[in-house]
């Protein structure tokens, strides 16, 4: 029974994906893509990956969706550039080849679950995924934060020269309608609470810095769309401090660990959990702000309210 459900879910995801890549109108394609993201989140939940599911829904579907919707606005439909039949044949071949590859994966599957479970208690964390992200493979996480920061730098670098220090354009043109402002007033506090919970719970239960940051970013964007807060200026010193807090907080913790535990990105023995918690808070704040700014796009001038 559950296999039937899984098969159905898989087909649904693939169907949504197909709709997204075949839709003629950009807007329709993006909406199909957002639906695909939600369905994919479902698949992740079925794969015993609640952390990934949360991330996929918040980022892969939610915030990516906002970004893509903005890109699709006013974009004309472009005719396909290649021979569709040939492309379809290649794509089917790719899918079949990959299917053959996954079916050929060895049995029993190699796994690091045992290693991770054995090493987890030393970190004081209960959620093995958080453990991998912040303790075992903290280098990846540090770099991922740098990637995020760099994406923002890249987005900002697209500004026109004299406008580089200003505020971004509003997300969607025109004033926000009153109902959405009301909705935002209700939703934002709830969302912030959810975000905070995800951060707090992430150490031991599904959730964590990224999921929390993404939720907070979504709330922030909602508030900005509703006009509840002014658009941030790119050269605001406090804002930049928050941006740096995450990656460089983690880096600082890494050096602290080097000094106390003898290895870069190790955590001080006995203080693993508190240090990780503090770093997570900094990361969450940075992620939330970076996501908001990345979504808002390059600064577009001084005269925005």
């Amino acid at each position, binding site marked *: 029974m559950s296999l039937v459900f899984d098969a159905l879910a898989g087909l649904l995801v693939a169907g949504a994906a197909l709709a997204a890549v075949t839709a003629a109108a950009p807007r329709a394609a993006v909406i199909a893509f957002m639906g695909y993201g939600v369905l994919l989140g479902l698949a992740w939940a079925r794969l015993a990956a609640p952390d990934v599911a949360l991330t996929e829904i918040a980022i892969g579907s939610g915030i990516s969706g906002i970004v893509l919707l903005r890109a699709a606005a006013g974009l004309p439909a472009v005719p396909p550039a290649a*021979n569709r039949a040939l492309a379809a044949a*290649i794509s089917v071949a790719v899918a079949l080849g990959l299917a053959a590859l996954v079916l050929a994966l060895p049995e029993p599957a190699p796994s690091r679950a045992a290693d991770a479970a054995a090493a987890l208690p030393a970190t004081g964390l209960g959620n093995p995924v958080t453990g991998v992200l912040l303790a075992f493979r903290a280098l990846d996480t540090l770099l991922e934060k740098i990637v995020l920061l760099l994406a923002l730098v890249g987005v900002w670098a697209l500004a026109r020269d004299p406008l580089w220090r200003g505020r971004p354009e509003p997300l969607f043109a025109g004033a926000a309608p009153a109902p959405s402002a009301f909705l935002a007033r209700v939703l934002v506090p709830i969302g912030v609470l959810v975000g905070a919970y995800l951060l707090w719970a992430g150490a031991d239960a599904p959730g964590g810095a990224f999921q929390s940051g993404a939720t907070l970013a979504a709330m922030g964007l909602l508030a900005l769309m509703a006009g509840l807060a002014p658009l941030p200026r790119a050269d605001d010193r406090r804002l930049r401090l928050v941006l740096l807090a995450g990656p460089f907080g983690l880096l600082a913790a890494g050096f602290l660990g080097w000094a106390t535990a003898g290895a870069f990105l190790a955590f001080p023995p006995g203080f693993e959990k508190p240090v990780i918690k503090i770093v997570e808070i900094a990361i969450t704040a940075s992620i939330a702000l970076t996501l908001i700014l990345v979504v808002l796009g390059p600064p577009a001038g001084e005269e925005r309210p």
Partner: protein
Amino acid sequence: MSGFLTTPPLPISVAPEALLLLAIAAPLALALAMLAPGLRRLVPRLLILAPLPALVAAVAVPRGMSVLVAPYPFRFTLALDGSGALLLGGAALLWMAAGAYACAYMRKDPARGAFATWWALTMAGSFAVFLVADVASFYLAYALVSFSAFGLVTHDDTPEARRAGNLYLALTVLGEAFLIAAFVMLASGTSEANPLIRDAVAALPTSPFRSAIVLLLLAGFTLKMGLFPLHVWMPLAHAVAPVPGSAALSGVVVKAGVIGLLRFLPDGVALPGWGEALTAVGIFTAFYGVALGVTQTHPKRALAYSTVSQMGVVGAVIGAALASGLPGAFPIAAFYAVNHMLLKGAMFLVAGLAMASAPARARQAALIAGVLGLSLAGLPFTGGALAKYAIKIVVPDGIAGFLLTLSAVGSALLMARYAVLVTASGKERQTPPGGILLPALALAALALAVPFALFAPVTGLPLAAAFSGDALAKGVWPVALGLALAGLLAWRRWPLPEVPAGDILHAMGPLAALWRHTLDLAVAADARLRRWPVAATALIALAALLAVVAR
């Protein structure tokens, strides 16, 4: 054999090693001095003196001396052998005379500084090719002389000079490719990454790549010498350079190809087939150069074709030596080359003198030109006759020998043509720049005299051998016949249509069209490949292909 080849005429005991290095370093230092604004004005004058260490080295450094300048892993080694000493000494004399000539000739040229730089670099490279003894340094020296000469060719920056320069550069790069391939194969026969040329050549006869190496060496070096069909650049390039530049190009730079063959082909070892082939190409070139040269209407182009023809003779001599495996033949080829070097240098200087003079003066210059020409054609009692006599040792009587003798007829004819063109090249109301007369005369005198000093040491025969009745008879008839032919042609008002310089280049139209087609094809293919759907498909296809082959 004794004398010049084995022991220096004026041996010195003080630091002969340093002298070898100084021979190359002196002109290089002058080129570098051009970078310093304070020294720049002095350089052109000093260029006259720059060849002095090379000259001293040629006459004073013990033969066989070798200096390891930079030890392993570079093995930058200099060495002086008989052939090298001959060419080095001759080149030094030519560079000095032509340098003095250039100093006066270019006095008013605003770009004389640039000319001086290229001059010094070409000089350094030319001395270096005669002196270096390891393969990698030879490649470097050869590249230095070849690429620097480009600056001499294109100095006047006329459309013709640009065209000639581009062709020269293209063929030079091609020649470098031939040579690096040959050198890599040669070096693979030894245990060293950068062997001495001597060791590499010793391994040549047994190399598994022997044929490929010899073919590439011949292609690379005969390109520089201007042997048919790789001569196309020479009439263009030598005619467009400023007069002293032409003298250096035709006199010295082409000899880089000669020393290349002498160094990299085994002396005294027969390479059956290759020797005959080189002889055939050489003899054909000797006649071909004459045939096209006599149609020319400009003295410098006629001289350039004469160089083609003469290098054909040198090629034939080397080919004959390879065919027979006669030991000790290579210095004779070098001797012939030195004779040509000095004569051709002097001829260009004299032609330049005439072209810058009033008609009366030009007629006087034509007299000298005629004497030089007769020497080149091998009239008895001239230096050229000694050179012609010497090569008979290598190329005995027979078809090849007869044809070479016959080519002297052509030389005489071509030289007559040159003298006539010189006569006609004066223009009213012009006076040559002061100071070009003396170097031209000096070089002419040296060109006529030096072979007498070298004949005996090089051939091991007494000078009198060249003056035997038999030798005289053999020397006179070709010249007489050539002059008679010239007289006949002159009487008929020279009814030969001028063949444009570069001759077969003009028949290369289809080749050029093919190249343009290739270019268009590549651009179109590139444009297609760079379209997104094509590139994206290629990416997937590449992944699939790799996955299939890497099973």
